[in-house]
């Protein structure tokens, strides 16, 4: 079946069901735990769609589907939308339960690794660095908030809406959609743009924060280069925030004791 035919054949869900699924998507990680990970979250998101199975909430089809969809699942939270869309369609088209379970298991890996690279290691640092650059260039509180939250959430909400749509459109043939150029090449382009922004943002933000100590800027830049080199060398052994905590605690004690 072509993707076009799949669209034509897709069963329909009322708009209010989609709205409910989308809002529940925002809470997909509400019960995240080490046993089921996102499992119950997926069941929670799919529940409004599964009410449309024959017999409704009290029917055997609903109960069977809910039991399947609330089992262990792991993925990037934003890209669970793809899983929710495709699994909703598979259940409403009465695909064989064994096939749905195998498909559900197969989705975990790709939706996790693609999402982590695209969002956590790409889009989020890019938006943070853009906000820091704006701050460094003198933007005020409201402007910085609007830049960061506006831009980040265009990507965030867009990804969730796209995921639901592409999942529902392609059903269990969604693998082809995951080869989308944005998902394949996006992380590399975003990483390059973020690296460029990091270079711009760091000196500017540093200059604005240091304000009263600007005469010490040269020393701070040298300390930053040395500190960053040390952290790069210690990569994987200790996190930078722990070192910052230790350094600042020791400095605060010294500042009080040296009185």
């Amino acid at each position, binding site marked *: 079946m072509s993707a076009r035919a799949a669209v034509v054949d897709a069963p329909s869900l009322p708009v209010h069901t989609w709205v409910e699924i989308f809002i529940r998507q*925002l809470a997909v*990680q*509400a*019960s*995240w*735990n*080490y046993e089921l*990970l996102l499992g*119950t979250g997926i069941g*929670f998101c799919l*529940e409004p769609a*599964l009410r449309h199975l024959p017999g409704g909430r009290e029917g055997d089809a609903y109960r069977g589907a*809910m*039991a399947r969809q609330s089992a262990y699942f*792991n993925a990037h939270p934003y890209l669970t939308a793809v899983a929710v869309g495709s699994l909703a369609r598979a259940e409403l088209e009465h695909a064989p339960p064994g096939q749905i379970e195998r498909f559900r298991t197969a989705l975990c890996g790709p939706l996790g690794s693609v999402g982590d690279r695209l969002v956590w290691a790409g889009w989020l640092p890019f938006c*943070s660095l853009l*906000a820091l650059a704006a*701050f460094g260039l003198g933007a*005020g*509180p409201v402007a*910085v908030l609007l830049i960061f939250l506006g831009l*980040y959430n265009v990507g965030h909400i867009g990804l969730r809406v796209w995921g639901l749509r592409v999942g529902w459109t392609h059903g269990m043939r969604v693998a082809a959609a995951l080869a989308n150029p944005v998902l394949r090449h996006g992380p*590399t382009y975003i*990483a*390059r743009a973020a*690296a*460029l922004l*990091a*270079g*711009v*943002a*760091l000196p*500017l*933000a540093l200059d*604005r*924060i*240091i304000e*009263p*100590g600007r*005469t010490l800027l040269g*020393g*701070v830049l040298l*300390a*930053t*280069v*040395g*500190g*960053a080199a*040390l*952290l790069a060398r210690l990569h994987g052994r200790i*996190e930078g*925030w*722990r070192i*910052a*905590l230790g350094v*600042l*605690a020791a400095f*605060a004690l010294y500042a*009080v004791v040296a*009185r």
Partner: protein
Amino acid sequence: MTPEQLFTIGLLGAIIGLDVVSFPQAMISRPIVAATITGMVLGDAAAGLLVGATLELIALETLPVGASRYPEWGSASVVGGALFAMRPNVMPGALTMAVLGALATAWVGGWTMYVIRRFNGAIARRWIPTLGLGSGRAVIAIQTAGITADFVRGGILTLVAMLALDPLSRAMVGLWSLDARLSRAVVIAAAASVAAGATWKLFHNTPGARWYFLGGLAIGLALLMAR
């Protein structure tokens, strides 16, 4: 700190702490947002933004990936923003103590998130037989319990941190013996080192990224000198 301020800060910590994982992950929990909002609420948005930007530099290295344990920046940034906004920021040591307070809270916050995940696991285990029968109500009950527990976690964490750190920070700033320039320089050197290290960690595997970084650095330094 008045009881009304404490209540407001606790409520902010609960709402913003919830955003880290449970709902809606719109990144209002990022330091540059959370601390700025806290500053706005307490009447000094610029102070909130300053401490938020400093914490954002440090938070750049944290990737909130699934099962990993990481510092909880949301409630911690509310604490940092509040500690700084409630003190005149010209006081030497005020920024150091606000950042230090936020880092300590983020550390404890990471542990509280681990506790909540264990709690969610215990709740899920109790409901597993019912889940196996396909109960929609069980799923909703588990999600509701998780979101409620996380809200309470963020609120309690913020309240306890403020009750412990506000008097400590006030006392330390009162006894501070070093001048404002050096104090500010040490904080920013620590934060910028973490940020530069994080940049390397995030992008060193991307082909060409180091050249983009160096190009950006040239632009940033040129803008700085043009001022």
